[in-house]
């Protein structure tokens, strides 16, 4: 019997991303790493993500969550990510602190809805959406670490493309992510 040469393809890291109560700005910043996305795709493959449009997260190495938790669906998605991802990353101000959506935390939810759907400038005959398909909103927006355990935090509104690149390449290389002073900001 002749021995077959063994070639081992380096296993790509499987990465899932999602946006909860965020503005997709962090995902835009992720896309902002531009042509380096091709380099990134040599070492990672995407699972559930707005980029792939896969609806549910399977087993992954890294999960990246943008946005805080503002409704029941956010909690389901977040728990699915925690269950499936070895390493879970909170990306951006909203995931880490609640961010701009948390500005409503001291406004009554009903007052909020009235303002948005009834009294907003230019609105006529407004009505508050009540379709049963819509997720149940919470009275307050919460950072994701108040719901599940988070392994890493990547602050910024959004984090710069450079910060995301450095963070992901450090993680992919098995290093503890370390960002320069310029790359860490809360806004």
């Amino acid at each position, binding site marked *: 019997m002749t021995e077959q040469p063994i070639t081992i393809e380096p296993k790509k890291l499987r990465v899932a991303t999602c946006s909860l109560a965020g503005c997709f700005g962090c995902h835009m910043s992720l896309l902002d790493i531009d042509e380096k996305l091709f380099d990134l795709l040599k070492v990672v493959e995407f699972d559930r993500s707005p980029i792939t449009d896969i609806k549910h997260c399977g087993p992954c190495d890294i999960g990246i969550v943008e946005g805080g938790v503002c409704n029941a669906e956010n909690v389901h998605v977040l728990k699915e990510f925690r269950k499936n991802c070895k390493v879970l990353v*909170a990306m951006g*101000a909203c995931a*880490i*602190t*609640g*961010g*701009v959506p*948390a*500005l409503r*935390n*001291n406004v009554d939810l009903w007052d909020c809805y009235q303002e948005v759907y009834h009294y907003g400038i230019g609105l006529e005959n407004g009505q508050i959406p009540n379709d049963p398909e819509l997720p149940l909103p919470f009275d*307050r927006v*919460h*950072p994701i*670490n*108040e719901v599940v355990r*988070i392994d*890493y*935090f*990547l*602050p910024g*509104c959004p984090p710069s493309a450079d910060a995301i690149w450095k963070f992901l390449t450090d993680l992919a290389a098995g290093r503890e992510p370390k960002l320069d*002073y*310029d790359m*860490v*900001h*809360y*806004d």
Partner: protein
Amino acid sequence: MTKTCTFTLDGKTIPFEEGETIMEAASAAGVYIPHLCHHPEFKPHGSCKLCTVNIGGRLGAACTNRAADGMKVESETEALNADRRALTQMLFVEGNHICPSCEKSGNCQLQAVAYHLGMMTPHFTHFYPARDIDASHPDVLIERNRCILCELCVRASRDVDGKNVFGIGGRGIKSRLIVNSASGRLADTNMSVTDRAAEVCPTGAILRKRHGFTVPIGKRLYDHQSIAEVPVAGMKEPRRD
């Protein structure tokens, strides 16, 4: 006058004059000790505890403890910086510090100290306290969501402006910045936008109106330089009293 007495701070020899605090002597020697409620122009307050140092085995605030000849002080230790980071995190969750929507972002000392200490998350459960805004004054805004109770405005208004506009009312978690007028509104005081109290706030709690976001991102005070490298205005002239 040459300073004849010395103490060591993290092994470095720091000269000082009789009566100087550890903070004053360290600042004059160009050594940064993290702080928020301290300002060289005003009497020490000793409340934020960020400047806590190890003085010969005992912990104390560098801004309130006087330097003594031959004393050994430690500041940049892993344990002290971990405590400082935890204190800063608590300040963040106690208020509503939403940096992306704050005019002071980039020039804020609370944010800058957090950057300096490597704070990647506020970690603790957010309080999201209900605090109010006082926009009654034509030129000065009070945003209590961002107040850290350092009392710098209280000291500036009382000691420099001679107006005594501000105070801290309430106890414990209910402590809040109050205004010395019958209505409690800033508009009903003699506060002026040129007062020292209008510009001394380390966070975005007291702001001059119509000056928000004038400096673009990338050119703000702490965008590229750590607070340890940016001298606070007046730091070269330690308090004399």
